Protein backbone atom coordinates (compact mmCIF):
# COMPACT_ATOMS: atom_id res chain seq x y z
CA UNK A 1 0.00 0.00 0.00
CA UNK A 2 1.38 3.44 -0.91
CA UNK A 3 1.69 6.39 1.45
CA UNK A 4 -0.98 8.23 -0.51
CA UNK A 5 -3.46 5.36 -0.13
CA UNK A 6 -2.72 5.18 3.60
CA UNK A 7 -3.31 8.89 3.98
CA UNK A 8 -6.65 8.73 2.14
CA UNK A 9 -7.76 5.76 4.18
CA UNK A 10 -6.87 7.57 7.41
CA UNK A 11 -8.71 10.70 6.25
CA UNK A 12 -11.82 8.65 5.54
CA UNK A 13 -11.60 7.02 8.93
CA UNK A 14 -11.27 10.36 10.62
CA UNK A 15 -14.20 11.76 8.65
CA UNK A 16 -16.35 8.75 9.42
CA UNK A 17 -15.50 8.92 13.09
CA UNK A 18 -16.11 12.66 13.31
CA UNK A 19 -19.41 12.33 11.43
CA UNK A 20 -20.62 9.47 13.58
CA UNK A 21 -19.81 11.28 16.82
CA UNK A 22 -21.41 14.46 15.45
CA UNK A 23 -24.65 12.65 14.51
CA UNK A 24 -24.94 11.02 17.92
CA UNK A 25 -24.21 14.24 19.84
CA UNK A 26 -26.58 16.22 17.62
CA UNK A 27 -29.48 13.83 18.03
CA UNK A 28 -28.97 13.36 21.78
CA UNK A 29 -28.54 17.10 22.34
CA UNK A 30 -31.55 18.04 20.25
CA UNK A 31 -33.75 15.44 21.92
CA UNK A 32 -32.68 16.50 25.41
CA UNK A 33 -33.28 20.14 24.54
CA UNK A 34 -36.64 19.54 22.89
CA UNK A 35 -38.13 17.56 25.75
CA UNK A 36 -36.39 19.00 28.80
CA UNK A 37 -35.67 22.64 27.99
CA UNK A 38 -37.95 23.58 25.09
CA UNK A 39 -41.26 23.68 27.00
CA UNK A 40 -39.76 26.12 29.51
CA UNK A 41 -38.19 28.54 27.10
CA UNK A 42 -39.48 32.13 27.36
CA UNK A 43 -41.80 33.80 26.54
CA UNK A 44 -43.93 30.80 27.51
CA UNK A 45 -47.25 29.77 26.05
CA UNK A 46 -49.69 32.41 27.26
CA UNK A 47 -50.76 33.46 23.78
CA UNK A 48 -50.70 32.12 20.26
CA UNK A 49 -47.81 34.41 19.41
CA UNK A 50 -45.88 33.49 22.57
CA UNK A 51 -46.37 29.81 21.80
CA UNK A 52 -45.25 30.31 18.20
CA UNK A 53 -42.27 32.32 19.38
CA UNK A 54 -41.24 29.59 21.77
CA UNK A 55 -41.64 27.01 19.01
CA UNK A 56 -39.55 29.11 16.62
CA UNK A 57 -36.84 29.57 19.19
CA UNK A 58 -36.75 25.84 19.79
CA UNK A 59 -36.61 25.08 16.07
CA UNK A 60 -33.73 27.52 15.68
CA UNK A 61 -31.94 25.80 18.53
CA UNK A 62 -32.46 22.40 16.90
CA UNK A 63 -30.82 23.76 13.77
CA UNK A 64 -28.08 25.64 15.58
CA UNK A 65 -27.06 22.88 18.00
CA UNK A 66 -25.62 20.51 15.36
CA UNK A 67 -23.63 23.39 13.87
CA UNK A 68 -22.32 24.40 17.27
CA UNK A 69 -21.50 20.88 18.40
CA UNK A 70 -19.90 20.17 15.01
CA UNK A 71 -17.45 23.03 15.48
CA UNK A 72 -16.66 22.13 19.08
CA UNK A 73 -16.26 18.48 18.25
CA UNK A 74 -13.95 19.19 15.33
CA UNK A 75 -11.81 21.52 17.43
CA UNK A 76 -11.50 18.98 20.22
CA UNK A 77 -10.87 16.14 17.79
CA UNK A 78 -8.15 18.13 16.03
CA UNK A 79 -6.46 19.05 19.27
CA UNK A 80 -6.44 15.46 20.47
CA UNK A 81 -5.41 13.80 17.23
CA UNK A 82 -3.50 16.27 15.10
CA UNK A 83 -1.56 18.40 17.54
CA UNK A 84 1.98 18.98 16.27
CA UNK A 85 3.68 17.37 19.22
CA UNK A 86 2.03 14.02 18.58
CA UNK A 87 4.20 11.39 16.94
CA UNK A 88 3.39 10.41 13.36
CA UNK A 89 1.32 13.46 12.60
CA UNK A 90 2.25 14.82 9.16
CA UNK A 91 3.04 18.45 8.59
CA UNK A 92 -0.06 20.52 8.05
CA UNK A 93 -0.94 21.00 4.43
CA UNK A 94 -2.13 24.28 3.02
CA UNK A 95 -1.95 26.24 -0.18
CA UNK A 96 -3.14 24.80 -3.51
CA UNK A 97 -3.65 21.29 -2.16
CA UNK A 98 -6.20 22.44 0.36
CA UNK A 99 -7.96 24.49 -2.29
CA UNK A 100 -8.32 21.42 -4.48
CA UNK A 101 -11.01 19.82 -2.34
CA UNK A 102 -13.96 20.84 -4.47
CA UNK A 103 -16.22 18.28 -2.87
CA UNK A 104 -15.72 19.87 0.53
CA UNK A 105 -16.19 23.40 -0.80
CA UNK A 106 -19.38 22.57 -2.68
CA UNK A 107 -20.76 20.69 0.28
CA UNK A 108 -20.02 23.59 2.64
CA UNK A 109 -21.56 26.23 0.37
CA UNK A 110 -24.60 24.08 -0.41
CA UNK A 111 -25.32 23.14 3.18
CA UNK A 112 -24.96 26.69 4.56
CA UNK A 113 -27.02 28.15 1.71
CA UNK A 114 -29.80 25.63 2.21
CA UNK A 115 -29.85 26.20 5.97
CA UNK A 116 -29.99 29.99 5.64
CA UNK A 117 -32.65 29.93 2.91
CA UNK A 118 -34.76 27.41 4.79
CA UNK A 119 -34.63 29.56 7.91
CA UNK A 120 -35.57 32.66 5.90
CA UNK A 121 -38.55 30.87 4.37
CA UNK A 122 -39.49 29.40 7.73
CA UNK A 123 -39.35 32.82 9.41
CA UNK A 124 -41.47 34.41 6.70
CA UNK A 125 -44.07 31.67 6.90
CA UNK A 126 -44.23 32.00 10.67
CA UNK A 127 -44.83 35.76 10.43
CA UNK A 128 -47.63 35.25 7.90
CA UNK A 129 -49.27 32.32 9.70
CA UNK A 130 -48.88 34.07 13.05
CA UNK A 131 -50.73 37.17 11.80
CA UNK A 132 -47.71 39.36 12.28
CA UNK A 133 -46.34 37.30 15.19
CA UNK A 134 -47.44 39.89 17.72
CA UNK A 135 -45.42 42.67 16.15
CA UNK A 136 -46.82 46.06 15.27
CA UNK A 137 -48.02 46.02 11.66
CA UNK A 138 -48.74 49.71 11.32
CA UNK A 139 -52.15 51.29 10.78
CA UNK A 140 -53.13 48.96 7.93
CA UNK A 141 -52.13 45.44 8.95
CA UNK A 142 -51.42 43.01 6.13
CA UNK A 143 -52.09 39.95 8.25
CA UNK A 144 -54.96 39.86 10.67
CA UNK A 145 -57.27 37.30 12.24
CA UNK A 146 -60.74 36.77 10.85
CA UNK A 147 -63.18 39.33 12.15
CA UNK A 148 -60.54 41.94 12.98
CA UNK A 149 -61.67 44.47 10.39
CA UNK A 150 -65.26 44.14 11.52
CA UNK A 151 -64.35 44.56 15.19
CA UNK A 152 -62.02 47.51 14.56
CA UNK A 153 -64.53 49.27 12.33
CA UNK A 154 -67.27 48.82 14.91
CA UNK A 155 -64.93 50.06 17.66
CA UNK A 156 -64.29 53.28 15.82
CA UNK A 157 -67.99 53.73 15.14
CA UNK A 158 -68.77 53.17 18.80
CA UNK A 159 -70.91 50.14 18.02
CA UNK A 160 -68.50 47.35 18.92
CA UNK A 161 -69.59 44.51 21.14
CA UNK A 162 -67.91 41.60 22.81
CA UNK A 163 -69.33 38.80 24.90
CA UNK A 164 -68.02 35.50 26.24
CA UNK A 165 -68.06 32.67 23.67
CA UNK A 166 -68.73 35.14 20.88
CA UNK A 167 -65.36 34.49 19.18
CA UNK A 168 -65.24 38.20 18.40
CA UNK A 169 -61.96 40.05 18.20
CA UNK A 170 -61.50 42.37 21.17
CA UNK A 171 -59.90 45.73 20.30
CA UNK A 172 -57.84 47.23 23.12
CA UNK A 173 -56.21 50.59 22.68
CA UNK A 174 -52.81 51.10 24.25
CA UNK A 175 -52.11 54.77 24.99
CA UNK A 176 -48.52 55.53 25.89
CA UNK A 177 -47.61 58.72 27.64
CA UNK A 178 -44.63 59.86 29.66
CA UNK A 179 -44.45 57.66 31.72
CA UNK A 180 -47.34 55.25 31.86
CA UNK A 181 -49.46 53.05 29.63
CA UNK A 182 -53.22 53.37 29.84
CA UNK A 183 -55.77 51.24 28.03
CA UNK A 184 -59.09 52.00 26.40
CA UNK A 185 -61.80 49.44 25.79
CA UNK A 186 -63.95 50.73 22.92
CA UNK A 187 -66.37 47.82 23.11
CA UNK A 188 -67.20 48.73 26.70
CA UNK A 189 -68.18 52.33 26.30
CA UNK A 190 -64.62 53.44 25.66
CA UNK A 191 -63.55 53.55 29.30
CA UNK A 192 -59.88 54.07 30.01
CA UNK A 193 -57.94 52.22 32.67
CA UNK A 194 -54.38 51.92 33.92
CA UNK A 195 -54.99 48.16 34.10
CA UNK A 196 -54.62 45.79 31.17
CA UNK A 197 -57.02 42.90 31.65
CA UNK A 198 -57.72 40.44 28.82
CA UNK A 199 -60.13 37.54 28.31
CA UNK A 200 -58.75 34.08 27.65
CA UNK A 201 -59.18 32.28 24.31
CA UNK A 202 -59.79 35.55 22.53
CA UNK A 203 -58.20 37.29 19.58
CA UNK A 204 -56.96 40.67 20.75
CA UNK A 205 -56.25 43.64 18.48
CA UNK A 206 -53.88 46.05 20.22
CA UNK A 207 -54.15 49.55 18.77
CA UNK A 208 -51.01 51.22 20.01
CA UNK A 209 -50.44 54.96 19.97
CA UNK A 210 -48.69 57.67 21.98
CA UNK A 211 -49.64 61.06 23.34
CA UNK A 212 -46.12 62.46 23.28
CA UNK A 213 -42.79 60.88 22.34
CA UNK A 214 -42.07 57.45 20.89
CA UNK A 215 -42.63 54.63 23.34
CA UNK A 216 -42.83 50.91 22.72
CA UNK A 217 -45.48 48.61 24.13
CA UNK A 218 -43.85 45.34 25.08
CA UNK A 219 -45.90 42.63 26.74
CA UNK A 220 -43.20 40.01 26.86
CA UNK A 221 -45.19 37.02 28.07
CA UNK A 222 -47.87 37.79 25.47
CA UNK A 223 -45.17 38.11 22.79
CA UNK A 224 -46.59 41.42 21.67
CA UNK A 225 -44.32 44.32 20.85
CA UNK A 226 -45.37 47.43 19.00
CA UNK A 227 -43.88 50.91 18.85
CA UNK A 228 -46.14 53.64 20.19
CA UNK A 229 -45.80 56.65 17.93
CA UNK A 230 -47.70 59.91 18.31
CA UNK A 231 -50.30 60.34 15.58
CA UNK A 232 -49.94 56.70 14.46
CA UNK A 233 -52.05 53.65 15.13
CA UNK A 234 -49.78 50.63 15.26
CA UNK A 235 -51.83 47.44 15.30
CA UNK A 236 -50.64 44.11 16.71
CA UNK A 237 -52.57 40.89 17.12
CA UNK A 238 -52.41 37.92 19.42
CA UNK A 239 -54.73 35.28 20.80
CA UNK A 240 -54.76 34.60 24.53
CA UNK A 241 -54.49 30.90 25.36
CA UNK A 242 -53.58 30.69 29.03
CA UNK A 243 -54.71 32.31 32.26
CA UNK A 244 -52.14 34.23 34.26
CA UNK A 245 -50.38 37.50 34.77
CA UNK A 246 -47.88 39.22 32.52
CA UNK A 247 -45.77 42.32 32.54
CA UNK A 248 -45.84 45.32 30.24
CA UNK A 249 -42.77 47.46 29.77
CA UNK A 250 -41.80 50.37 27.62
CA UNK A 251 -38.91 49.27 25.44
CA UNK A 252 -38.07 52.63 23.91
CA UNK A 253 -35.92 55.01 25.95
CA UNK A 254 -38.46 57.75 26.54
CA UNK A 255 -37.23 60.02 29.31
CA UNK A 256 -36.38 60.24 32.98
CA UNK A 257 -38.96 57.75 34.24
CA UNK A 258 -38.63 55.31 31.35
CA UNK A 259 -37.37 52.67 33.77
CA UNK A 260 -40.53 53.01 35.83
CA UNK A 261 -42.86 52.75 32.86
CA UNK A 262 -44.21 49.30 33.47
CA UNK A 263 -47.30 47.60 34.79
CA UNK A 264 -48.62 44.11 35.17
CA UNK A 265 -51.68 42.72 33.45
CA UNK A 266 -53.81 39.61 33.62
CA UNK A 267 -55.51 37.14 31.37
CA UNK A 268 -58.78 36.12 33.02
CA UNK A 269 -61.48 33.65 32.07
CA UNK A 270 -63.98 35.16 29.66
CA UNK A 271 -66.67 35.40 32.33
CA UNK A 272 -64.28 36.98 34.84
CA UNK A 273 -63.12 39.47 32.22
CA UNK A 274 -66.70 40.31 31.37
CA UNK A 275 -67.43 40.94 35.06
CA UNK A 276 -64.33 43.16 35.40
CA UNK A 277 -65.06 45.11 32.22
CA UNK A 278 -68.70 45.68 33.11
CA UNK A 279 -67.82 46.74 36.65
CA UNK A 280 -65.03 49.08 35.52
CA UNK A 281 -67.20 50.57 32.80
CA UNK A 282 -69.78 51.46 35.42
CA UNK A 283 -67.21 52.69 37.95
CA UNK A 284 -65.51 54.90 35.36
CA UNK A 285 -68.69 56.11 33.72
CA UNK A 286 -68.39 59.63 35.05
CA UNK A 287 -64.84 60.06 33.80
CA UNK A 288 -65.54 58.30 30.51
CA UNK A 289 -68.10 60.94 29.58
CA UNK A 290 -65.31 63.53 29.76
CA UNK A 291 -63.05 61.50 27.49
CA UNK A 292 -63.21 62.29 23.80
CA UNK A 293 -64.81 59.79 21.45
CA UNK A 294 -62.67 56.78 20.76
CA UNK A 295 -60.22 57.35 17.90
CA UNK A 296 -57.08 55.71 16.62
CA UNK A 297 -54.73 58.59 17.33
CA UNK A 298 -54.64 61.73 19.40
CA UNK A 299 -53.20 65.08 18.61
CA UNK A 300 -50.38 66.05 20.92
CA UNK A 301 -50.03 69.65 21.93
CA UNK A 302 -46.50 70.94 21.57
CA UNK A 303 -47.22 73.73 24.01
CA UNK A 304 -47.52 71.40 26.93
CA UNK A 305 -49.18 73.04 29.86
CA UNK A 306 -50.49 75.95 27.85
CA UNK A 307 -52.66 73.73 25.72
CA UNK A 308 -54.94 70.83 26.37
CA UNK A 309 -54.68 67.51 24.72
CA UNK A 310 -58.31 67.48 23.79
CA UNK A 311 -59.08 70.50 21.64
CA UNK A 312 -61.97 72.43 23.09
CA UNK A 313 -62.15 75.28 20.64
CA UNK A 314 -60.23 77.69 22.82
CA UNK A 315 -56.83 76.19 22.45
CA UNK A 316 -54.44 76.08 19.55
CA UNK A 317 -53.58 72.51 18.75
CA UNK A 318 -50.23 71.37 17.48
CA UNK A 319 -51.59 69.82 14.34
CA UNK A 320 -53.83 71.46 11.80
CA UNK A 321 -55.71 68.22 11.50
CA UNK A 322 -57.58 66.98 14.51
CA UNK A 323 -58.04 63.27 14.52
CA UNK A 324 -59.31 62.79 18.00
CA UNK A 325 -62.80 64.01 18.43
CA UNK A 326 -63.97 67.54 18.19
CA UNK A 327 -65.29 69.95 20.74
CA UNK A 328 -65.52 68.48 24.18
CA UNK A 329 -68.77 68.15 26.05
CA UNK A 330 -69.28 71.04 28.40
Amino acid at each position, binding site marked *: MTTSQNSTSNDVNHLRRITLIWIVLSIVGDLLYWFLVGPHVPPGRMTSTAKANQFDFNVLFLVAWPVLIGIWEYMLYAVLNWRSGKAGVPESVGGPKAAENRKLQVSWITITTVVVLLLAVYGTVEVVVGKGSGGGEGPNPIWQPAGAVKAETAALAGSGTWAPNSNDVLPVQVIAQ*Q*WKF*TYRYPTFGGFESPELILPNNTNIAFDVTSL*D*VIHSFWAYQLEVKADANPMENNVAFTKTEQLGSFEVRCSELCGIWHGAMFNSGSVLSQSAFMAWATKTEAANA*QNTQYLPPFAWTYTPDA*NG*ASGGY*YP*DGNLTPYSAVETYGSKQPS
Partner: protein
Amino acid sequence: MTKGGRLGTVLGLFLVAVGLVVWAVASFLTPGVPGGVVNFVNAQAKGQPVNLTVETVGSIGFGAHPTWVSYLVKNPTTGKWLHDTSWQLPAHTLIHMTVYQYDSGSPLRNQEWGQVQGTVGGTATLNGKTFSVYNSNTGNGVGHTFAIPQFNLSVPMVGVIGSATLCGVAPCHTSAPHNTETFSFMTPGPGSYNWQCFVPCALGYLYGNGGAMSTQNYMGGEVEVVQ
Protein backbone atom coordinates in the same frame (compact mmCIF):
# COMPACT_ATOMS: atom_id res chain seq x y z
CA MET B 1 14.67 49.58 43.75
CA THR B 2 15.39 46.57 45.90
CA LYS B 3 13.51 43.34 45.47
CA GLY B 4 11.68 43.95 48.76
CA GLY B 5 10.71 47.46 47.64
CA ARG B 6 9.33 46.21 44.35
CA LEU B 7 7.41 43.49 46.12
CA GLY B 8 6.02 46.02 48.59
CA THR B 9 4.93 48.36 45.78
CA VAL B 10 3.20 45.57 43.90
CA LEU B 11 1.53 44.33 47.06
CA GLY B 12 0.41 47.86 47.97
CA LEU B 13 -1.07 48.52 44.54
CA PHE B 14 -2.77 45.15 44.62
CA LEU B 15 -4.36 45.92 47.98
CA VAL B 16 -5.52 49.32 46.70
CA ALA B 17 -7.08 47.65 43.64
CA VAL B 18 -8.81 45.05 45.82
CA GLY B 19 -10.07 47.80 48.11
CA LEU B 20 -11.51 49.74 45.19
CA VAL B 21 -13.28 46.66 43.86
CA VAL B 22 -14.71 45.83 47.30
CA TRP B 23 -15.85 49.44 47.74
CA ALA B 24 -17.50 49.49 44.28
CA VAL B 25 -19.29 46.17 44.83
CA ALA B 26 -20.41 47.16 48.35
CA SER B 27 -21.70 50.51 47.06
CA PHE B 28 -23.60 48.77 44.30
CA LEU B 29 -25.17 46.20 46.60
CA THR B 30 -26.13 48.70 49.31
CA PRO B 31 -27.51 51.74 47.52
CA GLY B 32 -29.07 53.03 50.75
CA VAL B 33 -31.02 56.23 50.82
CA PRO B 34 -29.72 59.15 48.80
CA GLY B 35 -28.56 62.17 50.73
CA GLY B 36 -31.19 64.84 51.26
CA VAL B 37 -34.07 62.40 51.57
CA VAL B 38 -36.89 63.66 53.76
CA ASN B 39 -37.52 61.12 56.48
CA PHE B 40 -41.15 60.54 57.48
CA VAL B 41 -40.43 57.27 59.24
CA ASN B 42 -39.31 58.66 62.57
CA ALA B 43 -41.76 61.55 62.62
CA GLN B 44 -44.36 59.59 64.60
CA ALA B 45 -44.78 56.36 66.51
CA LYS B 46 -44.48 53.14 64.54
CA GLY B 47 -47.77 52.13 62.93
CA GLN B 48 -49.32 55.54 63.33
CA PRO B 49 -50.55 57.41 60.23
CA VAL B 50 -48.08 59.78 58.63
CA ASN B 51 -48.93 63.32 57.63
CA LEU B 52 -47.29 64.27 54.34
CA THR B 53 -47.74 67.87 53.24
CA VAL B 54 -46.60 69.22 49.89
CA GLU B 55 -47.19 72.26 47.74
CA THR B 56 -47.02 72.93 44.02
CA VAL B 57 -45.88 76.25 42.68
CA GLY B 58 -45.89 77.53 39.09
CA SER B 59 -42.41 79.02 39.39
CA ILE B 60 -40.20 78.11 42.28
CA GLY B 61 -38.47 81.50 42.29
CA PHE B 62 -35.02 80.41 43.38
CA GLY B 63 -32.19 78.07 42.52
CA ALA B 64 -30.81 77.12 39.14
CA HIS B 65 -34.21 77.24 37.44
CA PRO B 66 -36.32 79.89 39.19
CA THR B 67 -39.01 79.82 36.47
CA TRP B 68 -39.59 76.11 36.68
CA VAL B 69 -42.69 74.58 38.18
CA SER B 70 -42.03 72.46 41.23
CA TYR B 71 -43.26 70.47 44.18
CA LEU B 72 -42.03 71.27 47.69
CA VAL B 73 -42.41 69.18 50.80
CA LYS B 74 -42.85 70.17 54.43
CA ASN B 75 -40.25 68.72 56.76
CA PRO B 76 -42.25 66.65 59.28
CA THR B 77 -39.89 67.54 62.11
CA THR B 78 -39.11 71.22 61.59
CA GLY B 79 -42.21 72.23 59.64
CA LYS B 80 -40.00 74.01 57.08
CA TRP B 81 -40.62 73.75 53.36
CA LEU B 82 -37.95 71.85 51.46
CA HIS B 83 -37.19 71.65 47.77
CA ASP B 84 -36.73 67.90 47.92
CA THR B 85 -38.68 65.19 46.14
CA SER B 86 -37.02 62.14 47.72
CA TRP B 87 -39.03 60.90 50.63
CA GLN B 88 -38.76 58.00 52.99
CA LEU B 89 -42.05 56.51 54.18
CA PRO B 90 -42.84 53.60 56.51
CA ALA B 91 -44.22 50.42 54.96
CA HIS B 92 -47.85 49.32 55.35
CA THR B 93 -48.80 52.66 56.83
CA LEU B 94 -51.64 55.05 56.21
CA ILE B 95 -50.41 58.30 54.72
CA HIS B 96 -52.58 61.40 55.09
CA MET B 97 -51.54 63.73 52.33
CA THR B 98 -52.28 67.44 52.04
CA VAL B 99 -51.44 69.35 48.88
CA TYR B 100 -51.47 73.12 48.60
CA GLN B 101 -51.82 73.76 44.89
CA TYR B 102 -50.71 77.29 43.96
CA ASP B 103 -50.56 76.80 40.18
CA SER B 104 -53.10 77.39 37.43
CA GLY B 105 -54.49 74.58 35.29
CA SER B 106 -55.61 73.55 31.82
CA PRO B 107 -57.48 70.68 30.20
CA LEU B 108 -55.62 67.45 30.75
CA ARG B 109 -53.77 65.85 27.87
CA ASN B 110 -55.44 62.68 29.02
CA GLN B 111 -58.58 63.05 31.12
CA GLU B 112 -57.83 59.63 32.60
CA TRP B 113 -55.73 61.54 35.14
CA GLY B 114 -58.78 63.55 36.13
CA GLN B 115 -59.97 60.52 38.05
CA VAL B 116 -58.94 59.94 41.65
CA GLN B 117 -57.35 56.51 41.85
CA GLY B 118 -55.73 54.44 44.54
CA THR B 119 -56.73 56.54 47.53
CA VAL B 120 -58.64 55.30 50.55
CA GLY B 121 -62.27 55.25 49.40
CA GLY B 122 -61.27 56.30 45.87
CA THR B 123 -61.84 59.92 46.75
CA ALA B 124 -60.02 63.11 47.64
CA THR B 125 -61.20 66.44 48.95
CA LEU B 126 -60.91 69.75 47.14
CA ASN B 127 -61.20 72.67 49.55
CA GLY B 128 -63.17 70.44 51.86
CA LYS B 129 -65.48 68.93 49.22
CA THR B 130 -65.15 65.27 48.38
CA PHE B 131 -64.67 64.33 44.75
CA SER B 132 -63.65 61.30 42.72
CA VAL B 133 -63.49 62.78 39.21
CA TYR B 134 -62.62 66.26 38.02
CA ASN B 135 -63.57 67.32 34.51
CA SER B 136 -60.46 69.16 33.41
CA ASN B 137 -62.27 70.72 30.46
CA THR B 138 -64.21 72.90 32.82
CA GLY B 139 -63.37 75.46 35.46
CA ASN B 140 -59.69 76.18 35.93
CA GLY B 141 -58.63 72.80 34.64
CA VAL B 142 -56.02 70.64 36.27
CA GLY B 143 -52.54 71.97 37.01
CA HIS B 144 -50.78 68.80 38.10
CA THR B 145 -51.32 65.32 39.35
CA PHE B 146 -49.73 63.53 42.22
CA ALA B 147 -49.19 59.95 41.13
CA ILE B 148 -47.24 56.95 42.32
CA PRO B 149 -47.85 54.55 39.42
CA GLN B 150 -46.67 51.46 41.30
CA PHE B 151 -49.22 52.18 44.04
CA ASN B 152 -51.90 52.78 41.34
CA LEU B 153 -52.24 56.17 43.03
CA SER B 154 -53.20 59.25 41.04
CA VAL B 155 -54.94 62.42 42.18
CA PRO B 156 -55.58 65.49 40.01
CA MET B 157 -54.48 68.84 41.42
CA VAL B 158 -57.12 71.30 40.38
CA GLY B 159 -55.76 74.61 39.09
CA VAL B 160 -56.41 78.05 40.54
CA ILE B 161 -57.72 80.79 38.32
CA GLY B 162 -54.97 81.78 35.90
CA SER B 163 -55.84 85.47 35.82
CA ALA B 164 -55.14 85.87 39.54
CA THR B 165 -51.78 86.99 40.86
CA LEU B 166 -50.19 83.68 41.54
CA CYS B 167 -47.43 82.85 43.94
CA GLY B 168 -44.17 83.05 42.01
CA VAL B 169 -41.62 82.39 44.73
CA ALA B 170 -41.76 79.33 46.93
CA PRO B 171 -42.54 78.59 49.63
CA CYS B 172 -45.90 80.20 49.13
CA HIS B 173 -48.06 81.70 51.82
CA THR B 174 -51.62 80.49 52.09
CA SER B 175 -52.79 84.04 51.48
CA ALA B 176 -51.92 83.46 47.79
CA PRO B 177 -54.63 81.88 45.60
CA HIS B 178 -54.53 78.16 46.10
CA ASN B 179 -56.55 74.98 46.35
CA THR B 180 -56.17 72.57 49.21
CA GLU B 181 -56.55 68.90 48.47
CA THR B 182 -56.39 66.03 50.90
CA PHE B 183 -56.42 62.28 50.45
CA SER B 184 -55.06 59.17 52.11
CA PHE B 185 -53.32 56.09 50.82
CA MET B 186 -51.59 53.01 52.18
CA THR B 187 -47.96 52.32 51.51
CA PRO B 188 -47.09 48.83 50.30
CA GLY B 189 -44.10 46.77 51.38
CA PRO B 190 -40.55 48.05 51.37
CA GLY B 191 -39.09 49.10 48.07
CA SER B 192 -38.08 51.99 45.87
CA TYR B 193 -40.87 53.65 43.96
CA ASN B 194 -41.16 56.77 41.91
CA TRP B 195 -43.77 59.46 41.96
CA GLN B 196 -44.50 61.99 39.27
CA CYS B 197 -46.86 64.55 37.85
CA PHE B 198 -48.72 63.36 34.76
CA VAL B 199 -49.55 66.81 33.46
CA PRO B 200 -46.95 67.90 30.92
CA CYS B 201 -46.47 71.12 32.81
CA ALA B 202 -42.94 72.12 31.84
CA LEU B 203 -43.87 75.26 30.00
CA GLY B 204 -41.60 76.07 27.08
CA TYR B 205 -40.48 72.50 26.47
CA LEU B 206 -41.70 70.34 23.63
CA TYR B 207 -44.85 68.53 24.70
CA GLY B 208 -44.28 70.03 28.15
CA ASN B 209 -42.33 67.02 29.32
CA GLY B 210 -38.80 68.44 29.36
CA GLY B 211 -37.29 70.77 31.93
CA ALA B 212 -38.99 70.45 35.29
CA MET B 213 -40.76 67.26 34.18
CA SER B 214 -37.50 65.57 33.31
CA THR B 215 -35.34 66.77 36.17
CA GLN B 216 -35.20 65.28 39.64
CA ASN B 217 -36.45 67.47 42.47
CA TYR B 218 -39.11 69.31 40.52
CA MET B 219 -42.16 67.36 39.29
CA GLY B 220 -41.16 63.87 40.26
CA GLY B 221 -39.08 62.01 42.75
CA GLU B 222 -38.43 58.86 44.69
CA VAL B 223 -40.38 57.25 47.47
CA GLU B 224 -38.29 54.93 49.55
CA VAL B 225 -40.62 52.70 51.54
CA VAL B 226 -38.85 51.07 54.48
CA GLN B 227 -39.89 48.62 57.14
